[in-house]
């Protein structure tokens, strides 16, 4: 198992996409940190970019990697290994590669320029988001036989979580602004890993005060460790649930 994970992982590193991705993140964070005297503000700008790039790359990379290693998976499946073990290895390697990219690209510069819990939480939260996107991408690619179609669906899902979902929230909040929607808003946020990770990071930054600007519930939620624990927990669910669905599909899949 360990050896298989490290083989798949090394294979990913050698594809250079992961390295290019890590370097891109590194470049962006270094530039943003050096542009602004206030590292807290730079962290926010980095968040703005990471929240677009990380889910996109995580999803597309995971999808493409799955399809490209299809025949290799076939070969592995002819070996005395259970299907779940094989998918676990694939996912573990994906997690390792994506997390490594985030650690080098975002982790090193933020801890260098702005050591503290804010940076730490940003890295943790962005990494969790990245893994969640990888799990969703695996689920999509296992359930979709055709490569082009799989990549297309991944892109659509990314687009949905990045933009359309927030648009829907906006629409709902506006249509029902006469009703008390505080709890509902929080519940809605839990349905989108990108929003969740954004909110988790914001909870760590001063800016969270703005989010609790009105409304006792939001204030109590965003002002406490409980809020942080809750968002992180749901974010982890967003990794575990898609992955276990992916496992379930993979066990029954015809190669």
């Amino acid at each position: 198992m360990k050896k298989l994970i490290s083989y798949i992982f090394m294979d990913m590193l050698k594809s250079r996409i992961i390295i290019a991705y890590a370097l891109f993140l590194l470049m962006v964070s270094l530039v943003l940190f050096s542009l602004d005297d206030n590292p807290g503000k730079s962290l926010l700008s980095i968040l703005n970019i990471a929240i677009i790039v990380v889910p996109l790359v995580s999803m597309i990379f995971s999808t493409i990697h799955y399809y490209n290693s299809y025949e290799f998976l076939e070969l592995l499946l002819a070996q005395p290994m259970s299907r779940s073990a094989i998918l676990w290895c694939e996912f573990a390697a994906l997690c390792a590669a994506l997390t490594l990219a985030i650690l080098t690209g975002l982790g090193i510069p933020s801890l260098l320029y702005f050591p503290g819990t804010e940076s730490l939480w940003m890295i943790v939260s962005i990494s969790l988001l990245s893994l969640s996107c990888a799990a969703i991408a695996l689920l999509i690619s296992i359930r979709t036989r055709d490569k082009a179609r799989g990549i297309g669906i991944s892109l659509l899902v990314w687009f949905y979580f990045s933009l359309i979902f927030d648009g829907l929230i906006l629409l709902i909040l506006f249509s029902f602004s006469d009703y008390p929607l505080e709890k509902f808003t929080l519940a809605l946020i839990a349905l989108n890993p990108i929003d969740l990770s954004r909110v988790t990071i914001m909870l760590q930054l001063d800016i969270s005060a703005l989010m609790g600007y009105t409304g006792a519930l939001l204030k109590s939620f965003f002002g406490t460790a409980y809020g942080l624990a809750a968002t992180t927990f749901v974010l982890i669910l967003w990794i575990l649930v898609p992955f276990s669905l992916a496992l379930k599909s993979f066990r029954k899949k015809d190669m």
Partner: protein
Amino acid sequence: MIFRLRFNNSSRIAPGSFFILLDLVFIQFPSIASVITVHPQKENNSIHRALEQSVNGDTIMLSPGIYREGNITIDKGICLMGVPGAILDGEMKYEILSISGQHVVVYGLEFRNSGRSGMNDIAAVRCIDASDIMISHNKILNAHFGIHVSNSRHVRIEQNLVEGIPAEEQNTGNGIHLWKSDTAFIWNNEILGHRDGIYFEFVTSSLIQDNISHDNIRYGLHFMFSHHNTYLCNEFRNNGAGVAVMYSNNVSMEQNLFLHNWGPSAYGLLLKDISDSRISNNSFINNTTGIHFEGTNRIQVFHNIFAGNGWAARVQASCSENIFTKNSFTANTFDVGTNGTMTLNLFKNNYWDKYEGYDIDKNGIGDIPYHPVSLYSMIVENDPNCMILLRSILISFLDKAEKAIPSITPENLSDSAPLMKAPAQ
């Protein structure tokens, strides 16, 4: 002699003409004054007794030690002063010092543990119906109200440290509290841990300068119905709700620092029903809202710095004829927020770091107007729940789109001549 020496020291900072008057009042007496020294341990030797013996112009000098004498009332023109280490303890029961009358100096004492009550405003030091009072170089610790002044004139409160132990808002008094007074001068005090750091109600013609008011439960400074006052060069930091100026006119606020008043309903400066005032050369840094304007008219806001605030300024539709010029807006989440299609206020020649225009003729003024109200700030104003979308991709796109083709944000609310560089302060 000691008294006069010290007095000369402090006179170098007296800025207003009425303080010169105050100086003269004190200087009348030294020739006939005597000094009565009190030791806490000696028999038949108490502040009460010294007060009985003293006459106008005398100095009562307290030696180091803890004095537990309940309430002490001064009603004649004497100077009560302490050698460092002289402590008046209220034992959580008494109002420690009550002053009425004229020409009283309280200097160099430490007051601690005043009584507290929900009914009366018990203070460590109270001035009532007094004039020409100086309270200086004292430490007031763990008091309900620190210094409470009512119905008094010419009160000078300087270089004191007033430090409360914050409890709930209703169980904590104000640090320096003035009611129905005029011509007060509050200089160079540090106030923390109280409900309001400095509180003014029905106070006129007074000056608040060089104070630091921080970590108070509610406001660092709170004005109600107080006209013709000035506050200069103060620092208000980390207060629960910042600074509030309400129902007043002709207030001058200059060169103050409003720092990190940060919380769900905190303001750097909250203005409510204020008119004909000026706000200049202040710095509003890292506040949830830099200045909140509500029902304000004819206020000149110029040469201020707004940096790192949630909203630099929120201007409610109830405001008119306010003028914003030569201010610098940088790194604020929202520059200006408003709840209406407000066009009654003027923004001109400000510097906005979000301005993306150009200056072809190189005259330092941008050639296209800047719209400081973003679409998202309108959305949030409409439904605060939308704040949850802060910094999401959707919002960045919406703001960019609105900037390109304005449709919802008030078209007329704009800075027609934005500066290309921040004005020198």
